[in-house]
């Protein structure tokens, strides 16, 4: 089976190494969560996967496509959503989604239908024609999420997508992601909310100092940490405590 995402010996350094020889394999249709302390290299990893950052060395493959050799083909199957919703204030949500669909080459008629459906689903239908400049952070994040989904990506890469969302919005986003996974999409997500990872992720990767230090289901991680009945929080703290503190 071709993995949805595969990284091999991935490296990236800024002033200091951020990602060091990361090997990661995510299966198609999987909900994979990447955990790690601040500065562990999670965002850098995901930005490299999304084609936003060039790695120093290593390889990235998305559904068998070499993302470094053929970034356009890889990006066509991928969506990226960061914790900071960066959208165009002067566009309405509907226009923003039409723009994103245009970038991904989605048929305009189909895109409009998808956009309307997504906005409705995310509770943004009443604001579909308003410019985004007056939107709250949560509303902007939902517009950005709709943008990530409008082109029906096979791999959805999300960096802390629940940051700044209220409980209802967070639940909505979680439901949307679960529905996408049920529909066959693959989700790779970082989060600091361990309860979310515990409840949603099929497999969890723990990253520290740019390396994958543990990976598996919650049960696997419990076994690895030697804490059979612990919460993910306890397991995470135990696993990351073994690593020297990061800056």
């Amino acid at each position, binding site marked *: 089976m071709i993995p949805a995402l595969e990284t091999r010996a991935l490296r990236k350094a800024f002033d200091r190494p951020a990602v060091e020889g990361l090997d990661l394999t995510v299966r198609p249709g999987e909900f994979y969560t990447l955990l790690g302390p601040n500065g562990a290299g999670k965002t850098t990893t995901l930005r490299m996967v999304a084609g*936003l950052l060039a790695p120093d060395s290593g390889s990235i493959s998305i559904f068998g496509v070499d993302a470094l050799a053929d970034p*356009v083909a890889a990006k066509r199957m991928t969506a990226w959503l*960061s914790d900071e919703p960066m959208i165009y*204030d002067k566009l309405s949500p509907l*226009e923003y989604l*039409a723009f994103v669909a245009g970038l991904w080459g989605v048929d*305009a008629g189909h895109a409009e239908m998808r956009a309307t459906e997504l906005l409705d689903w995310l509770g943004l239908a009443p604001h579909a*024609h*308003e*410019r985004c400049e007056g939107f709250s952070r949560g509303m902007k994040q939902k517009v950005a999420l709709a943008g990530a989904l409008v082109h029906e990506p096979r791999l959805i890469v999300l960096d802390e997508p629940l940051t700044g969302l209220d409980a209802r919005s967070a639940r909505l986003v979680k439901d949307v992601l679960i529905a996408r996974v049920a529909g066959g999409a693959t989700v790779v997500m970082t989060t600091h909310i361990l309860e979310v990872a515990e409840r949603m992720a099929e497999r969890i990767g723990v990253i520290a100092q740019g390396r994958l230090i543990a990976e598996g289901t919650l049960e696997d991680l419990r076994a690895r940490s030697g804490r059979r009945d612990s919460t993910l929080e306890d397991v995470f703290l135990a696993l990351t405590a073994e690593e020297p503190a990061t800056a």
Partner: protein
Amino acid sequence: MMRAGSIAWIAGHELRLAWRDFVSMATGGRRRRTAVAVLLVAIFIAFMHWLADLTVGGHADAVPDRQTLTIVTGAVVLSWSLMLSQALEQVTRAFYQRADLDLILSSPLPARRLFTVRIAAIAGTTMAMALFLIAPFVNVLAWHGGPRWLSAYGVVFALGASATAVAVALTDSLFRWVGPRRTRYAAQVLAAVTGAVFVIGIQAAAIVSYGSPARFDLLQSEAVAALAPAVESAFWWPARAVLGEGSPLAAVLALGCALFVAAIAFFSTRFARHARATAGAPSTLRARQGRAAAFGRSTPGTVLRRKEWMLLRRDPWLMSQSLMQVLYLIPPALLLWRNFGEGSDMPVFVAPVLVVTAGQLAGGLAWLAVSGEDAPDLIGSAPVTARSVLRAKVEATMAAIVCLFAPFLLALAFGSLWIALVAAAGIVAAALSAIQIQLWFRLQARRTHFRRRHTSSRVATFAEALSSFSWAGAAGLAAAGSPLAPAGALVALAVLLGTGVLRPVAVRRRQAPVAPTPSQLSPA
């Protein structure tokens, strides 16, 4: 020791922040550049004194006759309009830039005190900026003509105080007329236009009346002299104050101070109310029907181009800022119209004016399209090659330039096909050079930082201006039929190549990723 919460204490706090902001702007945020920045300022001041000596050094013995009073009054009105423009911009920023406002307004400190200090700070900044340009002229005149000219400093003080008072009153009126949502745009567009309207207006009047773009021709004309009031009139008091007369100086100072104190007394409390209103009210223009179809069935390149034009069109402030240069096309347009109507020779200098304007405008638009991308992650993660994205952005910029300058070129072609061709070639060359410089020195920033884009790279700013002027020089020489025109073009190319040589150093230092994280977005 100052009492916490007192006006002096707030003033100290504001002064410290303003000083740090100024140092950051001057040094581009790099402390090691302080010595270079000080040296550059010293060179600029020396240059301004030399320029002042060259232009006004021989007029230090001027007496208050009608012609002198007219010219000095023109200079006073010009200075005041520029100060008003700057004050308006600052007042708007004081309302809308939240920064520490939420913190201070939520504290038990009386808001009136804060805004008293802020209005005073606006006046102080306005005066300081004006003095930076005016002081060399005053110093030179005082050097040659005696200390009487130092009274001009008093006039600058009065002008700064009154400009601030009027700016505060105007913004307050806008709040009441158009509401907090639209005031920001209205005031900023007003500020942009106010700064240029007097200069352009007087030049346009000179062209229409005399066929000459020289502003002083109009001020020195018999028609203006005939319209001007008698020498004894109070109308001339500001000019007389500049020339060193005591009573007019006292009157001008008293009026400036009175307006300023009244502005503080009336508006400092209302400022707090308005500031709260801007925090509560969205800056959005609601419920305007967005057309998703605007992006239609298009290629990614077309979608990107349309997006650039749409964002620019929908932002009146950015539009006013970037199209400010277009206002300077009014004089050459009038000159074209006048000469075309009279069938006389087409003035050669129209071509370089068009070229330099195109270069500057293209630089601003390219900055917005390339560096001012608000969703770099989205564009970076889209299945479009970086080359296609850049090409679309360059095309968007060039298309705007072509649309804007085509009517001028067409009008020019009716008068002189040669000059029109030269101007067209110069416009394309200057615009492409400016875009290339922006591509070389791009540094992701927010569009709202458009006004401060020059602080991110001094080299790019200088190169952009030098390139535009070089191409303008080449176009001027070619339009005049000079054999030196190819040499001019070579100089312009050399400027571009020289800038290209400097580029790798800047890029290497930044280690710019394909697209920055939000936190990497430059504040400048």
